[in-house]
């Protein structure tokens, strides 16, 4: 039993880490792009916002019939989690970059930093605490949504919860629920600490 819980916990972590990782790789550049283009940025943000609004189980249901990315299993779960994680990451990247003091940016441009250098050396470092806050939200939400992924064969700790519900077995339910809750709380604490560390500089 303990080995099963550990294996499911590991699987859960992998699902969330892979999806949030990919969401960062897509979301941060997308957020930067949105920050540069006011109108296109608004449209993109609304689109990402709309995805977030879809109930998670419904999103899983919608993805299953989609060719290549759909089907039953972990892959569909990861795709859904990526889509879910996108909003907080894109929005916070955008907010963080827009929040950089215009006087500081002005000074950077006036000293002869290229657009790339301004982004790398000024905008991203100053936006980093806000971006990490977005990653924290994405991770915590992702850990929660990943428990539901068990419903479509995605694996993870949700397997115990669903099985426990079906068998009216409280011990089995808790075997999934307690580690999932601890994972979410732990991720929240670690990423909050990182955020604070970045704010202090």
């Amino acid at each position, binding site marked *: 039993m303990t080995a099963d819980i550990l294996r499911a916990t590991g699987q859960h972590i992998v699902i969330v880490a892979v999806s949030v990782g990919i969401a960062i790789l897509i979301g941060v550049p997308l957020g930067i792009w949105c920050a540069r283009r006011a109108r296109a940025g608004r449209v993109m943000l609304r689109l990402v916002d709309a995805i977030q609004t879809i109930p998670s189980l419904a999103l899983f249901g919608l993805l299953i019939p989609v060719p290549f990315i759909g089907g039953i299993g972990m892959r569909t779960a990861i795709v859904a989690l990526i889509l879910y994680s996108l909003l907080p990451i894109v929005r916070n990247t955008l907010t963080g970059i827009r929040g950089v003091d215009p006087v500081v940016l002005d000074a950077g441009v006036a000293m002869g930093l290229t657009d790339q250098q301004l982004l790398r050396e000024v905008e991203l470092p*100053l936006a980093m605490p806000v971006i990490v806050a977005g990653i924290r939200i994405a991770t915590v939400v992702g850990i929660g949504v990943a428990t539901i992924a068990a419903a479509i064969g995605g694996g993870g700790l949700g397997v115990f919860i669903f099985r426990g519900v079906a068998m009216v077995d409280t011990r089995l339910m808790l075997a999934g629920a307690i580690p999932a809750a601890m994972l979410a709380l732990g991720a929240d604490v670690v990423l909050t600490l990182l955020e604070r560390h970045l704010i202090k500089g």
Partner: protein
Amino acid sequence: MGVAASVDFRSVSVEPILHDIDLHIGAGEAVAFIGRSGAGKTTTLRLVNGLVKPTSGEVFVDGAPLSSADLIALRRRTGYIIQGSGLFPHRTVYRNIATVPRLLGWPDSQIRAAAEEILAKLDLPLGKFGDRYPRSLSGGEQQRVGIARAMIANPSILLCDEPFGALDPIVRRDLQDAFVALRSGVTIIFVTHDVAEALHVTQRIVLFDGGRVVVDCPAAQFPAQRLPLVQHFVEAARI
């Protein structure tokens, strides 16, 4: 020391702010731009490093038109000092000052030596201030770092946009003195509201009103100009 550059404005307009500006600023000259808020002085200053583009006319630095110049290279040899300093809050004093030399590819040893020298002149020893972050400095100290950052790489032109505007009068006076002691081999454009500051720091005063140049004279002769607007500024500077 850097090699000072001349700046020319030929029929420059930035609609709807600035209209038909013609100015020649010689290499090594120190010129004050005075005027009320919205008179066009800051816009004119920002034309020189390409932060603002003319809607018509042309700006020249050392005779070369800016419309076809390499603005990145020009900005790296143009110092820029602004109100509120614009220091990078995430970088130490030393890393702030090292910005332009690093962009220019100076070796570390040269950057350190130059930083030490300029900070000493500004009464901010590198050993004591180098590792501190801007937020731990007073307003006057931040502005000193701003001056050091703008001047470390021996710029050809120094653009100052009310750099001492937000400081209390005593700190302000000290900084003006430090500034005067430092400037040489550089062309200076200094935007200010304060005639006393203009007289102290520059040799020539250009008065802007409604987006046009209305007075352009040696600083010493400025108080004697009869224009009511001149008298308004001169009276404001009296104690």
